[in-house]
């Protein structure tokens, strides 16, 4: 059996190591991270299935890499071991190292065109650590920075007495966690429904959607800290930059999935994602970083106010 062994060494290194240790083990075509567990489990279960193991190996190698990706995509959301009532089920969502989390954060801050966040950084190992702790950090950074900016803007006022405004933490927590969980549910449900008619392989699992949304919120943490600086033009510049970066992470992730749909639906979906993201950013800025100025009127059009006043005087 020379040729299967050759192909084995080229493509399935982990499986090759395990097979060299136990030639009788049968291999299954599952995602890469499950190779160890399934191969060892199969080795333990089927001790001497030499001929059967060889046939299984043949079946694996006959599928090309796209097929391997296809099965791993379908099983992307089913990597979890055990039922949802066991602890190991949730432990599979925290299977990340420090370097992996840092790499994903870097990928969310520097989106390059052509680099799909889910394909390039998550690689079928979505985690819940990043989204959860990024949301918690964002909640506290927005509340604390908002409090500091209010204090700095009113520092000269002798009638002002500093207040911690702790209720903002609760409001920020509700808003950010609802955004980070309800919007991915909506997006994932919508995309799955659109793809339900045709059997498409490009869909993302629910966990991957939550993951990309969570990591895309990371850029707002340094932005909210920089918003303490009390210059309006700087704040608007920062918010535009942050929206551009995190919006592009989301667009680059969801465009390849959506572009197979009709043109109208594709553009509408991506536009909705971007608009919701913008609403979150602008809403946070307006609520937490009030500087006593009213809602920003368009400063680029100074002719509108006089027209309004003349109209009103004419009516009266």
């Amino acid at each position, binding site marked *: 059996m020379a040729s299967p062994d050759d192909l084995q060494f080229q493509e399935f290194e982990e499986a090759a190591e395990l097979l060299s240790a136990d030639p009788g083990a049968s291999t299954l075509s599952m995602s890469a991270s499950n190779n160890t567990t399934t191969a060892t489990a199969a080795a333990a279960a089927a001790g001497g299935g030499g001929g059967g193991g060889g046939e299984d190996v043949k079946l694996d190698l006959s599928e090309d890499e796209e097929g391997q990706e296809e099965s791993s995509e379908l099983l992307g959301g089913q990597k979890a071991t055990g039922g949802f009532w066991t602890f190991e089920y949730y*432990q599979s*969502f*925290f299977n990340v*190292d420090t370097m992996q989390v840092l790499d994903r954060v870097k990928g969310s801050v520097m989106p390059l065109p052509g680099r799909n966040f889910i394909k390039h950084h998550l690689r079928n190992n979505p985690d819940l*650590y990043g989204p959860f702790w990024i949301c*918690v950090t964002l909640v*506290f950074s927005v509340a604390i920075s908002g409090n500091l900016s209010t204090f700095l803007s009113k520092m000269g006022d002798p009638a002002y007495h*500093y207040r911690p405004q*702790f209720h903002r933490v*609760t409001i920020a927590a509700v808003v950010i966690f609802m955004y980070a969980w309800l919007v991915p549910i909506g997006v994932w449900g919508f995309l799955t429904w659109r793809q339900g008619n045709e059997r498409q392989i490009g869909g993302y699992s629910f966990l991957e959607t939550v993951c990309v949304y969570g990591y895309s919120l990371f850029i707002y943490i340094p932005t909210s800290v920089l918003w303490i600086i009390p210059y309006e033009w700087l704040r608007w510049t920062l918010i535009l930059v942050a929206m551009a970066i995190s919006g592009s992470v989301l667009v680059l992730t969801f465009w390849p999935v959506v572009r197979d749909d009709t043109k109208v639906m594709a553009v509408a979906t991506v536009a909705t994602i971007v608009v919701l993201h913008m609403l979150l950013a602008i809403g946070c800025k307006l609520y937490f970083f009030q500087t006593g100025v009213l809602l920003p009127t368009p400063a680029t059009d100074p002719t509108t106010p006089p027209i309004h006043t003349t109209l009103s005087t004419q009516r009266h």
Partner: protein
Amino acid sequence: MAAAEEASRPFAGLSDVSISEDIPVEGDISVPVASSRRDEEFSTLDEPVKETILRDLRAVGNKFIHVLYPKRSSALLRDWDLWGPLLLCVTLALLLQGGAADSDDQGGPQFAEVFVIIWFGSIIITLNSKLLGGTISFFQSLCVLGYCIMPLTAAMAVCRIVLIGGSGTVSFAVRLVVVTASFGWSTFASTAFLADSQPPNRKALVVYPVFLFYFVIGWMILTFSPSQ
């Protein structure tokens, strides 16, 4: 039965000899008295209440000392208890009361908010460390995180004393220094106990939430402004 027969064979020739009352018969067939004495030592039902309370207080005080000088000892982990964390949490929440206009929602955290943040924060950090593959048990981790709030509670007491003297820039600078030092001490003490139980490539993932937790508590202490 067989043992009795074997024992009686060497004395078979003496079966007709009577034992005089002068010769003392030694031996103990009854249950040894020592075992009931051992049971009395472990049964704490009969001891006075003062002793029970003092024993628990001594255990709590012992752990406070371990937090003051954080070495890699396992005493804190082995005999965990949640009395100390409860005491510290209630003290901290009470000290954070009486701030600027409690009835106004623009003020500082309410008692329940402090309680929820400390206890739910500790539970979430413990769950996080266990999900990442930590070997420490649930209550041991709660115990460590709760006891390491002690420097921050002490800082809160110091801040309130400083605020009696006035709330100007100097007092703010003093409070900032005290809170920062105690925040660093708390984080260092808790990581000294918790870091060993994690796999080495995930230590930073576990330490960061602890850092965030004590940072938020330090923020609550620093922004406490008295009502005027």
